[in-house]
């Protein structure tokens, strides 16, 4: 992959990435009001508007083959969602927030993308259940499809009751896993906008073992080079008043990022995703996708800017 100097990319991705409006996609079982409340710390970084989205998948209202769909089932599901949303909305309205809601029958990913476009949302939040495959509320393929089709940042929030993490402040201590790709560098801009709520960022690069060949000195030289690039990113954060520290890991990106998150006691993993861009990251988008689907940590994926 062609590497682009960080400074050059930083100029190209200088658009502010404030999160003023987030789309909270829920089926209730996996993302509840407690999860939403934990995201309200984003208000300190400019969040003003939350849009609830509940997609009723067609299968849930379909009748037996050839007999159409049950209007009654649709009404029941719609109104059940509506009752929850009214309750949540009252709470947020009383806090001075702006709130909207979509309850739609259709394809999950397609409808989420439509709502995100209509609302010009800055962030899409989706849940990921760790229940059994059959009960899975968001199949991995849905997350993957969403990541590929949207140009909006996506936060994959994890099933709370099965997680050991207290998600009171998910943005307090993120790790930014970077491979220097445009998307992962764009993530820097995104995180800079959260300076009021981030306490410390750990900036991590996972070196390929193949990069580390030759003499001990050659290997250390490589490490030093990587470290210098990480230092440059950390300085960008420090200039914004965000404490940041660099970390070099070696090995399988997926495993090492998870390890780094644990060691740094991170609250969130942040990565660039390849999205719809023409170029291909070293991770081919598979690492962000796998982490989003499998990691215990909430995962924020930033796509590249539309080219």
């Amino acid at each position, binding site marked *: 992959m062609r590497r682009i100097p960080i400074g050059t990319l930083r100029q190209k991705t200088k658009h502010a990435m404030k999160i003023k409006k987030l789309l909270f996609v829920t089926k209730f079982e996996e993302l509840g009001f407690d999860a939403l409340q934990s995201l309200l710390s984003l208000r300190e970084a400019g969040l003003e508007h939350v*849009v609830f989205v509940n997609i009723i998948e067609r299968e849930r209202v379909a009748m037996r083959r050839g007999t159409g769909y049950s209007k009654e089932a649709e009404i029941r599901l719609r109104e059940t969602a*509506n009752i929850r*949303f*009214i309750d949540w*909305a*009252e*709470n947020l*309205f*009383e*806090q*001075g927030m*702006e*709130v*909207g*809601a*979509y309850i739609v029958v259709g394809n999950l990913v397609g409808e989420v993308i439509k*709502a995100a476009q*209509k*609302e010009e949302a800055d962030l899409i939040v989706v849940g990921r259940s760790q229940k059994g495959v059959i009960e899975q509320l968001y199949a991995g393929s849905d997350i993957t499809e969403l990541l590929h089709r949207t140009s909006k940042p996506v936060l994959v929030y994890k099933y709370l009751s099965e997680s050991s993490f207290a998600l009171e402040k998910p943005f307090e201590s993120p790790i930014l896993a970077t491979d220097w790709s445009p998307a992962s560098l764009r993530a820097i801009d995104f995180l800079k906008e959260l300076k009021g709520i981030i306490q410390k960022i750990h900036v991590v690069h996972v070196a390929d073992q193949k990069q580390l060949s030759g003499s001990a000195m050659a290997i250390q030289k490589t490490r030093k080079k990587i470290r210098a690039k990480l230092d440059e990113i950390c300085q960008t954060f420090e200039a914004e008043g965000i404490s940041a520290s660099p970390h070099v890991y070696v090995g399988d990106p997926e495993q090492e990022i998870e390890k780094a998150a644990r060691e740094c006691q991170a609250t969130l993993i942040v990565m660039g995703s390849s999205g719809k861009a023409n170029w291909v990251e070293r991770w081919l988008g598979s690492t962000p996708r796998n982490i989003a689907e499998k990691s215990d940590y909430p995962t924020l994926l930033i796509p590249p800017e539309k080219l």
Partner: protein
Amino acid sequence: MGKKVLVVDDDPDVRLFNVTVLEENGYTPLVATNGEEGKNLAKQEKPDLVILDVLMPRESGIRLYRELKTDKNLKHIPIIMLSGIAEKSFLRSQKVLAEFGDAPVPEPEAYLEKPVDAEELAATIKKIIG
């Protein structure tokens, strides 16, 4: 032509219900499906009354209510809030927004919680605009 009443609601069933009540009682209904549309229609048509939902896509009724009540050309238009959101939450939100520095706004002429029956809606409209 009867007095013009603007209905702003994203729910097609509620819109249909409101329009039917309005027509049956001799009013001329205007319809918007979200806050943005509602704002534009209010500016364009200067209705005699607005029936406004709260929880809607794009722009909520809370924001539109404030915009209408602070617009010098529109603030005289009476508004009936018609929503599943409790009146208490609506009033609290307006108070909080005023505390954040937004202009204070008066309370709506009426607040009806969904679902409302046709007679109650018609009577409320009649009481406000005749």
